[in-house]
Structure formats: structure tokens, C-alpha cells
């Protein structure tokens, strides 16, 4: 057993160093500003292991810490995760209670141990209809947020309990109240940009969403960030269950983002070239296709 640990130690060290090298190389290219994860498949993963479904959430949390560390190493400014849906309260009471207990323990753990969040300067925000949470969990949320409020290098948004339609409705309500208070009675100041600014992700200072990842092979958004991801966001529906998600799932996602950014830069560059060379016909055709 001691020999195994001895052998594993340099292997683990080498694996860590190679991971850091790979991430550092990728980070020399374009890196997404904001990436969201819909962490699906914890229960199915646990059942496949012969465990109770709810036991999968602990494995899921460990995966979350690992993936978060990868994202922070890449200097991704904002990570948003879907921890609990408003509809998840329909689950069996035992499972909901177990999830709430896990949430309370982990929030406090994240905030108090502080190593990862403080090292990378991460501010923790919990977004959603918080008054649905039990009082002890609400207290843990407030504690975790206040302990990281001074951090401003990156943001971790934990959506719990959350639903896009609730977020959009709250944004509309808030925009209407603001218009009434400002005396704008015909609503001329209410545009899609106004509504966007009233979303919980915007209020938390999050940049536009570049990448949306859903695990476990499900091909739906299930009410997660539907406003934020409906345009200019790359959506990945990955077959892997969340507890198994890792570096080799994340790398292709990042490489695809870089390919998109470079393709857009080439397109902008060739449009500028057309302006400079006065190629009006080609420019006109391109504008006609775009508009």
C-alpha cells in the first residue's frame, strides 16, 4: 500500500503539471468570458455504480470543484452553475432534504476554507428565488456571499433555486417598477437591453454567456439561462454524466470556442479588406446576405 502511494505521488504530480501546461497553452488563445454548466446526471451516475441516486450529488460536488479549478486556471471570468431548479422541489422529500443539507455544508465549506476562491479572487453569488430555501440554507448563502464579497477577479454564480421564466418575469417586473419611478409612463425606456440589465446574472456583473454545457446527453435547456444563451452562445449537449465530466470533456469545448472567435476575426478582417480595396460589388453582396 505504501509502495502504491509512493508510485502514485509522482504520477499525480506529473498529471497535474501536464494539465497545467495544457491549460496554459490553451489560455494563450481566446478564452470564454462566461461559461455555464447544467450539471445533470448525478443520480443516474450513482445508480450505475449501484448506489442510491441521491448519493451521486456528493460526487457531483467534487467534480464541480475540479472543473471550477480548471476554469479559474484558464482565467475564465465567470462560471455559472445550475445547482437546483425550482421544479426540483417536486422530487421526493428525502432527496430534497439531502440536497439542502449538502448545499448548506458545502456553501459554508467553500466560503470558510477559502483557498480556491481567495486564491483566484472569486466572488460567490447565489441567484434565484432564495425565499424558497430553508432558513438555515438562506443563512449559509448569506454567509458565503459576504465572505467573498471583497473578491473581484472572477465570479461564480450558483443558481439555486432557479428557473429562467422566473428570472425573466422578475426582470420585467423590475423594469416596469423602474419606469414608473422614473415617470416613464409610456414605457419608451423599456427595451430588450433594459430587460437584459435587470436579469440576475447581469445584476451580479456577469458578462454575456459564451458557452453553455449540459451533461448526461439530455437535449433540452430545462429552464436554465434561456434568455442568456439564445443567441451567440455555443451550446454543448455532452453525453457524459456530470460526475465523470473533466479536462478531456472541457478541452474540445474550449477549442471550439477558439475556432469560432478566429473565424469571426477572419470574417471581420476580410470585410475590412473589401472596404480598403473598394470592392463594392462583393461588399454589397455580403451585406445583402447578412441583412
Amino acid at each position, binding site marked *: 500500500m505504501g509502495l502504491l502511494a509512493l508510485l502514485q505521488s509522482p504520477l499525480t504530480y506529473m498529471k497535474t503539471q501536464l494539465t497545467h501546461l495544457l491549460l496554459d497553452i490553451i489560455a494563450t488563445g481566446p478564452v470564454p468570458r462566461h461559461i455555464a454548466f447544467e450539471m445533470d446526471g448525478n443520480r443516474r451516475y450513482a445508480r450505475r455504480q449501484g448506489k442510491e441516486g441521491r448519493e451521486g450529488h456528493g460526487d457531483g460536488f467534487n467534480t464541480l470543484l475540479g472543473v471550477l479549478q480548471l476554469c479559474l486556471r484558464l482565467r475564465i471570468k465567470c462560471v455559472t452553475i445550475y445547482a437546483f431548479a425550482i421544479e426540483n422541489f417536486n422530487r421526493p422529500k428525502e432527496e430534497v432534504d439531502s440536497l439542502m443539507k449538502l448545499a448548506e455544508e458545502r456553501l459554508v465549506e467553500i466560503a470558510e476554507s477559502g483557498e480556491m476562491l481567495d486564491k483566484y479572487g472569486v466572488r460567490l453569488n447565489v441567484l434565484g428565488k432564495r425565499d424558497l430555501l430553508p432558513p438555515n440554507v438562506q443563512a449559509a448563502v448569506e454567509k458565503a456571499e459576504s465572505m467573498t464579497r471583497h473578491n473581484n477577479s472572477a465570479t461564480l454564480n450558483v443558481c439555486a433555486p432557479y428557473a429562467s421564466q422566473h428570472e425573466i418575469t422578475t426582470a420585467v417586473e423590475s423594469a416596469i417598477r423602474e419606469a414608473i419611478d422614473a415617470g416613464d409612463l*409610456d414605457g419608451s425606456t423599456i427595451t430588450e437591453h433594459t*430587460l437584459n440589465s435587470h436579469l440576475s446574472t447581469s445584476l451580479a456583473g456577469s458578462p454575456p454567456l459564451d458557452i453553455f454545457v449540459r451533461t448526461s446527453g439530455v437535449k433540452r435547456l430545462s429552464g436554465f439561462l434561456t434568455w442568456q444563451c439564445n443567441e451567440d452562445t455555443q451550446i454543448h449537449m455532452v453525453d457524459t454524466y456530470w460526475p465523470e465530466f473533466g479536462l478531456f470533456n472541457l478541452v474540445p469545448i474550449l477549442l471550439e470556442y477558439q475556432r469560432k472567435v478566429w473565424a469571426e476575426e477572419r470574417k471581420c478582417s476580410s470585410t475590412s479588406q473589401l472596404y480598403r480595396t473598394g470592392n463594392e460589388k462583393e461588399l454589397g453582396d455580403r451585406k445583402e446576405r447578412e441583412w
Partner: protein
Amino acid sequence: MSTHWALRFIHSLYIIIISITASIQRRKRRHPHPLDVQRSKIPKHLCLNLVASDNTSSEETETAFLQCLQRVAAWCRVFGIETLTAYDRDGVLAGCSERARKCVFAANEDPEDSCESEVEYPLTPPLSEPSGSRPQSPNRETLPVELSVITMESSARVHKRRNVAVRRRPKTTSVSTTLTLHLISRDSAKPAIASASRSLLGGCVNSVMMSRTTMPSGIDYSLSIAELGSMLEAGLPPPDFMIIHHVGGMKTPCPPLELHGFPPWQITLTEIHRTLPDDSREYGPSSSKSHRTAALISETAFCRALDEYAEARFRLGR
């Protein structure tokens, strides 16, 4: 400099691996069930999200969109899918709604199929105005909302001839297939929600002004999900299933899918599928040598999409 070359190497390796994987998947991919095979689950409301290409002209795009719409509408009738929403970001279909109406509701049966079924269509229905909605809010008045949805409906009685070996004269049965068509664009998405917001504000102001002579400050306004939902879904109900199709084709390896501005309210529980480039090998005519021909959605692609939908599991949060 060395990290720049290292990144280029990683990308090159990635492309090679993805291309090999795609080639293997193509060989192993099963052919979908044919159109006439019954599926365990069929969407009641299907959405076709058509994506234009930079490499096709606007005329070719419009023609390709109309041809795709015509095909999908015909297949919807075969399956008994009651509602079809056709979305394209820039409103190409909404801009040629009269042609779309003729394509969908006045198409003739394919002569090769006439021995199998006869479809009688009623007079072509009138075009609806771009729809707004007046929500039913018992407590306050709201103004009409501009949802930018064009809706058309028609029903057709499909006579199916069933050939029975022992009888001389074949029996016929008839099935009614009503199809509702919605044409939408990006204007039906976030701008529609903004329009709904202005309408709600207007309604609130009117309600207060009717009971007072001046506008008081500090009104405590509240809005429920049900109220906003009833406004938005009155014009466009949520689709069960969305098929995204790129008429310009897609380069391999295929980029990740995007939603191209589809209405965010209605897409909450929509199952999403994108057609595969290999399944879309039917091309429309090209008017210009310099432009690539448009790739039309094929029957294979449609059947594969429905096979995937039939296998989807809905847990609804549980």
C-alpha cells in the same frame, strides 16, 4: 512564440481526431426508421429553426427556406403533427408569408403518391395579421402586445385508400389533419418580451389613472409568471421539439449548435435537434455559379429527428 505553435499543434491534432471520430460515427450510424413507421411519441408542436448561410444569395435563401417549409409541413401532416412553427432569425419567411401560405396550404400532392392517398384542401385560408395578444387578466387592463407572429390555419381531409386483396373495390377511410403554422423571427423573441413589458406598464398606468386624478408615486407593482406567460404564449405556444437546419450546409467538423435568437420564454422544455450534414444531401437550384447551392432538409434528416424525439425522457425536475 513556442506556445503559439503549441496551440496550433493542439488545434491540428483536435481536427484530425474529430474528423476520424466523425467518419467512424458516420459508418456506424443506423439509418432512421422510415416515414411510415409509427413512433412511440410524436411532438404535438414542432419548430423548424432555419439558419441561412453567408454563401447563399438572399433569393436562394428564401427559395430554400420555402422548400424546407413545404417539405416539413407535408411530413407533419403524415404524422398528424398539429402545429408547426417556422423560425428564421431575419424574418425571411415572415417577409414572404403569402408565398409561404401557398407552399404549405395550396401544394398539390406528388403525382407518384396519388395512388396511395388523395388530399383535398379547402380554399386557401386568409392570411392573419401579425398577431398580438390581449391577455385575460382579470385584475387589470393591458394593452395589445406586438408579438410579431404570423399564424395560419387549415384543415385537410386525407382520404387513404386501403387495398384489400379479396375485395374488388378498395375501402377508404378519412382522417382530419389540422395544421396550424406560425411564422416567427427574432422580433418574436426578446423584442416581443419588451413589447409585453410596455403593454403591462401601460395597463398598470391606465388602471391607476382611472381610479385617481393624478399618478401616485411608489406603486407596488408585481407580476406573476402565469400572467406574463399567458401574454407571450397566447401568440406563440412553446414547441415540444425543435429541428435546427442549416441551409448553407455545415463544414466538418460541425461547430456546436446555437439557437440563433429563438424566443427564450418558449424554449424552456423544448427538445433540441440539429440535422446532420450527411443527411442533408438534397440541394436546391443555384442561380449563380459563385454561390453555393442551398441544402434542403431531407426525409432522412426529418425521420432521424423524430426517432431521437421518440427516445427522449422527460423527468420535469423529478
